[in-house]
């Protein structure tokens, strides 16, 4: 209604605004609509961005700092040998359909995810589990095949949230979890509405309701923010437009970190990229800062290996292959390509990939490597590049937290194989002590940096923009989530 008021009256209302009670609703903008709302049956980040910590909860949860915290498990103990995890469950927790949460639900959830016809997108989380049982209604005991250092963190991912047998079949459209919000309405194509769960076991959230609105066009997203139709974008789709918000006192702009290592991936099995000298030459020819400035408008942190700079185990390897075109030419000549070569660069749809691709193609052209840019859709990228390994170069951001282990996988699309690296990873799996883990992670980072497996570009930044009066939204995204439990409006 306020829109119809004449300007003067509207101005007067704004002046008395702060005296009124603070708002208790929020409209969050999101780029992609989730295909459905069951995080245990799909990989789309948009699912977790709506339901994680808001609607569904796991035994553990991951905090804004990336730290594992108790969730539906109040506490736990891990046996000396790192094989047996005993969880003590919270009592008195109810699902949104009023059924009681207990150990049966945990057993059901895990057995379903591990089962033959499981469609869990991250089934690997449950791979280490040897057996699971419940000694009492509020205790769960999990025995692992081998010690798994990252197990508690992975249980805090959206793929491992606890669901009830009564509601699993309808969770995709009518999710029933244990979280502080219930899904009250989903207008397909437009928005998902959440309402405060009055029976929540924990502290009640300040927000009474929340709406996730799906706007994919960057220009439309700007207009929606400017017109006040949307209060916040946790991930604004266009870095080039952030300065517009920075200059406007109605908004706060928060640049945070993500788990997205953006890399120029190389097919290590194809000539001439199977020659380490060629890969080293390319690493020497990459001017990361130019890519960050040109493609990301200055947002992003350079990386020297496949590892997040904000992680305690991070080793700075930026200068492992400094920008040096003379060195590049020598290496290429040694490898037998003094005049460079031709190759293809397949680029998926996100703007970080398409823009970085243009700049990198120009940088490599300087040393005679001519890249033919082929834009592909995600579905094509998954089929041709990721599963088929049919590519020379591609650019993609690996957004899984702590995913350096992918370099040890057989048949992974880089086609990288180094037994020394595999040994470090095997050792890491069995290591629980944090200091020892960090040491191993450091070694792992060095090995893939030395081998110049890929061109390591930058850590993707999280471009947040929201109303200046909003508090409590996550600045960083250690997992893909919009945790609304601590969000409130400044009085």
């Amino acid at each position, binding site marked *: 209604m306020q*829109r*119809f008021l004449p300007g003067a009256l509207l101005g007067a209302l704004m002046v008395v605004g702060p005296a009124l009670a603070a708002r208790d609703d929020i409209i969050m903008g999101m780029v992609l*609509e989730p*295909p*459905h709302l069951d995080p245990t049956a*799909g*990989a*789309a980040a948009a699912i977790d961005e709506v339901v994680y910590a808001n609607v569904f909860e796991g035994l553990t949860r991951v905090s804004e700092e990336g730290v594992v915290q108790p969730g539906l498990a109040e506490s736990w103990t891990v046996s000396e040998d790192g094989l047996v995890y005993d969880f003590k469950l919270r009592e008195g927790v109810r699902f949104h359909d009023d059924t009681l949460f207990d150990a049966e639900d945990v057993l059901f959830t895990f057995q379903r995810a591990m089962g*033959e*016809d*499981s*469609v*869990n*997108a*991250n*089934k*690997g989380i449950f791979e280490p589990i040897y057996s699971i049982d419940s000694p009492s209604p509020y205790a769960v005991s999990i025995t692992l095949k081998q010690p798994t250092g990252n197990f508690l963190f992975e249980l805090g991912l959206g793929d491992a949230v606890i669901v009830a047998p009564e509601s699993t079949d309808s969770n*995709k*459209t009518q999710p029933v979890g244990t979280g502080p919000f219930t899904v009250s309405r989903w*207008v*397909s*194509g*437009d*928005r998902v509405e959440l309402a405060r769960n009055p029976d929540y076991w924990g502290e009640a959230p300040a927000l009474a309701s929340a709406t996730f*609105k*799906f*706007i*994919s*066009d960057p*220009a*439309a997203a700007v*207009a*929606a923010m*400017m*017109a*006040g*139709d949307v209060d916040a974008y946790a991930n604004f789709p266009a870095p080039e437009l952030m300065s517009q918000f920075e200059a406007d006192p109605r908004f706060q702009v928060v640049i945070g970190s993500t788990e997205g290592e953006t890399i120029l991936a190389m097919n290590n099995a194809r000539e001439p990229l199977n020659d380490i000298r060629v890969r080293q030459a390319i690493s020497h020819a990459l001017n990361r800062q130019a890519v960050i400035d040109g493609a990301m408008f200055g947002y992003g942190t350079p990386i020297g290996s496949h590892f997040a700079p904000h992680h305690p185990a991070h080793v700075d390897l930026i200068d492992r292959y400094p920008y040096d075109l003379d060195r590049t030419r020598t290496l290429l000549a040694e490898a037998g390509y003094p005049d460079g070569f031709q190759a293809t660069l397949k680029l998926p*749809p996100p703007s970080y990939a398409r823009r970085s691709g243009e700049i990198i193609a120009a940088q490599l052209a300087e040393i005679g490597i001519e890249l033919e840019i082929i834009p592909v*859709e*995600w*579905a*094509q990228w*998954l*089929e*041709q590049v*990721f*599963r088929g390994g049919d590519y020379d170069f591609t650019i993609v951001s690996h957004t*899984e937290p702590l995913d350096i282990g992918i370099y040890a996988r057989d048949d992974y699309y880089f086609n990288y194989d180094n037994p020394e690296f595999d040994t470090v990873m095997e050792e890491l799996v069995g290591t629980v002590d944090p200091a020892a883990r960090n040491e191993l992670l450091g070694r792992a980072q060095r090995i893939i940096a030395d081998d110049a497996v890929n061109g390591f570009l930058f850590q993707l930044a999280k471009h947040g923009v929201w109303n200046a009066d909003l508090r409590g939204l996550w600045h960083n995204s250690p997992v893909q989530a919009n945790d609304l439990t601590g969000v409130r409006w400044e009085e």
Partner: protein
Amino acid sequence: MTLFLVRRLFALALTLLVASMVVFAVMEVLPGDPAAMMLGVNAREDTLAALRAEMGLDGPMLVRYFQWLGGLVTGELGRSYTYDVPVAQLIRDRVVVSLPLALLAMSLSTLIAIPVGVLAAARHNRLADVTVMGAAQLGVAIPNFWFAMLLVIVFAVELGWLPAGGFAGWEAGIGEALRSLLLPAVALALPQAAILARVTRSAVLETLGEDYIRTARAKGLTRRAALWRHAVRNALIPVVTILGLQFSFLLAGTIIIEQVFYLPGLGRLIFQAIAQRDLIVVKDLVVLLAATVVVVNFLVDLAYAVLDPRLRAGQRGY
């Protein structure tokens, strides 16, 4: 007339059958596995196979084509891979946005273009004509999505009169719903109106030069009466033809406009479904849109018969 109808209906069914074959074949060769799209980069082979089986993607091609076609004929459109709800329900939810939007745009463009076109013809080569045709030229040249952004900046961001996008929903009241559709409808209607006005003008100009107009004037009809009773009526056939064609363009236009205004309509659904490889939704929607276009063309044919009595005898002379 009956023969005419039967022949047209037969052609209509045949067109749809061919459309279904084409879209099915295209979706078969389109790279990208719907299961992989759903499960992402960490999915294991056995999980993918389980999902493909669940989606019914593992049968032979011909069997799947006839199963799908049989479903279409009996009104069973299947289940969306990504949303896991019946496709019919998805379409029902989205049609209530797209259809009113298209109709609103269509009415706006007709209401503006026909009087303006007739006016320009009546004032041939005078100031009104030159102004209208100048504006129409501009309207044809401006892309609708760009015009849409201008509208948003002026009416939503600066003036705050209308929402920048989104759909309030019909349950919020007709007024609220129409408010959400107004800017998109104007953005869609303007280029259409420009084209329609030009066609109307030249059609009316042409009929104004006919012998029967001179006869009518000689009989003592005023300029105005001759214009409206004879010239405009006879000019309607090309105008209706263009209207029919424009309806198809409107449907295509909604795909872009629904992105700019983030409206949950059919255009946005098809756009998302293609990116997500929700093949069943794409196939159903393409056939539905093809059916709409074919039916509209059929209605245009019927309109010819109403407008031109000579055609009712079945002799289509042009």
